[in-house]
């Protein structure tokens, strides 16, 4: 079976999170999953066991004192080293800001084709075929690469599948200091506030608010409905620009793309660039006081009304039904 490299980013507590697990499951569809990790110290037995449970047949571990201080270069170096050794047919990273740039730089080094934001992967006639969802989910495209391995970044929450639990063989080695200059990372200046809400990108339910919420204080209404539904909180760009919510909540063309079971849009007009990020949701609900708001064109259930009247009543209903 061909080798597939998977770049694993350990979560804050050195655990193998759902995104890493999904990448390994995607790799298992194409060949033998090899986990590639870069850390500044040894790997714990717990981490190795978790990688095995997620289906990593082999672990290539690289130790670099620069992993947190030299922007991305140690990860590019590690993948390039592992690739030289394993001749993979595909290399997978997460479709995050870091993941895309690592993949891009690796593609340059390996002179290989790259496909970003992949939502599905399969093997066909000995090569990897990647599915992407482009122009805001308006098109589904299948592509492949020629003349080398596929370098793919995988959309979070899109892959799953059976894996073979293993006791992976681990190889640890020190990564030489890179010859390539890097930007220096001085430190983490702001981390997302820990919350009990589901993660926006992969949430089954999302409640988003727009400019219609009027202020940061009143935006709390969106959070209240989200909590009543067990949903993640999203927002339009106008709400982000107005400072009601952090940018990480932005859904749309230049924000996060979501595809939940339920998407609730509150006080959002439904500009095309917002729809781009949510129109593949299974069920869309919209509350807006303008009967002509374009969001109603794609809503399965639309309420023409004031969010400050309808939403508190809805929360009350949901909570009463639960009792």
């Amino acid at each position: 079976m061909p080798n597939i490299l998977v770049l694993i980013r350990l979560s804050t507590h050195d655990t193998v999170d759902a995104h890493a697990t999904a990448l390994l499951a995607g790799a298992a569809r194409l060949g033998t999953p090899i986990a590639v990790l870069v850390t500044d110290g040894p790997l714990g037995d717990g981490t190795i066991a978790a990688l095995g449970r997620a289906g990593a047949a082999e672990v290539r571990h690289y130790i670099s004192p620069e992993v947190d201080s030299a922007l991305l270069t140690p990860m590019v170096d590690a993948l390039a080293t592992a690739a030289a050794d394993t001749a993979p047919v595909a290399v997978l990273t997460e479709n995050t800001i870091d993941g895309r740039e690592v993949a891009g730089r690796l593609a340059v080094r390996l002179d290989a084709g790259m496909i970003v934001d992949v939502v599905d992967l399969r093997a066909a006639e000995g090569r990897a075929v990647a599915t992407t969802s482009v122009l805001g989910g308006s098109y589904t495209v299948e592509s492949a690469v020629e003349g080398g391995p596929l370098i793919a970044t995988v959309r979070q929450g899109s892959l799953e599948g059976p894996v073979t639990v293993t006791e992976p063989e681990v190889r640890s080695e020190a990564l030489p200091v890179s010859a390539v200059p890097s930007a220096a990372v001085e430190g983490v200046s702001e981390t997302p506030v820990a919350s009990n809400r589901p993660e926006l990108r992969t949430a089954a339910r999302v409640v988003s608010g727009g400019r219609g919420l009027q202020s940061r204080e009143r935006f709390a209404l969106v959070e209240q409905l989200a909590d009543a539904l067990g949903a993640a909180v999203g927002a339009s760009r106008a709400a982000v620009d107005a400072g009601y919510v952090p940018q990480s909540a932005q859904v749309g063309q230049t924000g996060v793309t979501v595809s939940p079971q339920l998407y609730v849009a509150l006080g959002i007009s439904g500009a095309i660039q917002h729809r781009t990020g949510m129109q593949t949701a299974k069920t869309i609900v919209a509350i807006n006081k303008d009967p002509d708001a374009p969001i109603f064109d794609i809503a399965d259930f639309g309420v023409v009304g004031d969010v400050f009247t309808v939403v508190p009543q809805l929360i009350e209903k949901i909570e009463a039904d639960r009792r």
Partner: protein
Amino acid sequence: MKIIVLIKQVPDTYGDRRLDQATGRIDRGGDLVVDEITERAMEVALKEKDARKAEVVLLTMGPASSVDVLRKGLALGADRAVHILDEDLAGSDMLRTSAVLAAALRREGFDLVIAGNESTDGRGGALAAMIAERLGLPHATSLNTVAIGADNVAGERAGEQGTRAIHAELPAIVSVTERNPEARFPSFKGSMRAKKKPLDTVALAELGVAEPASRTTVLTATRRPARAAGRKIADDGTAAAELAEFLTSSRLI
């Protein structure tokens, strides 16, 4: 300080954007505009020019129509523009695009390159880093804020796991996020002056980049059926109850 801004013409996100289903390429027949994020990149450069002495050069690779975005940028205050125009570049993937842009940048010479973090059409989000890799330079990318010094550039890098303060020695490649200010408006005087500014066209042969060829191929492209509107009710005091009923019957609560 010589700053090169990478600027791009894209189909208007407000329009009906289509894909050519035979090639998988973006149909450029509709309305075309400057990609908003590259306007913000240009604004960062022009602010630097306002504050200190800087030469701002615009660089684009694209079909003949792309000259419009260069003209617009010159009207806003850029000094010069370079258009890489060649029929052989149609449908270039990121690998090839990064090679061509890197070659043009090397030929031009610079202290700082500023790009947008992600285009609205291709959405690759990796081009600036790929160019840096080709040129053997540091990339300070996805910056929410940009501070340009005499010999370095610093800023706050966006990220799913939180933001990070980063900096790089010049020469370097930077990309900016939409947290950066919007572009200024062109003035009449600026538009008049733009007509006299140099706008060079460069063919692929002049850059000497035959390789790499594009390595990605589209196998199939299918349009998803458009969504239809469902039920819409006006709130007469009972809408919340009806909505709760809908959510219950759809097994969503």
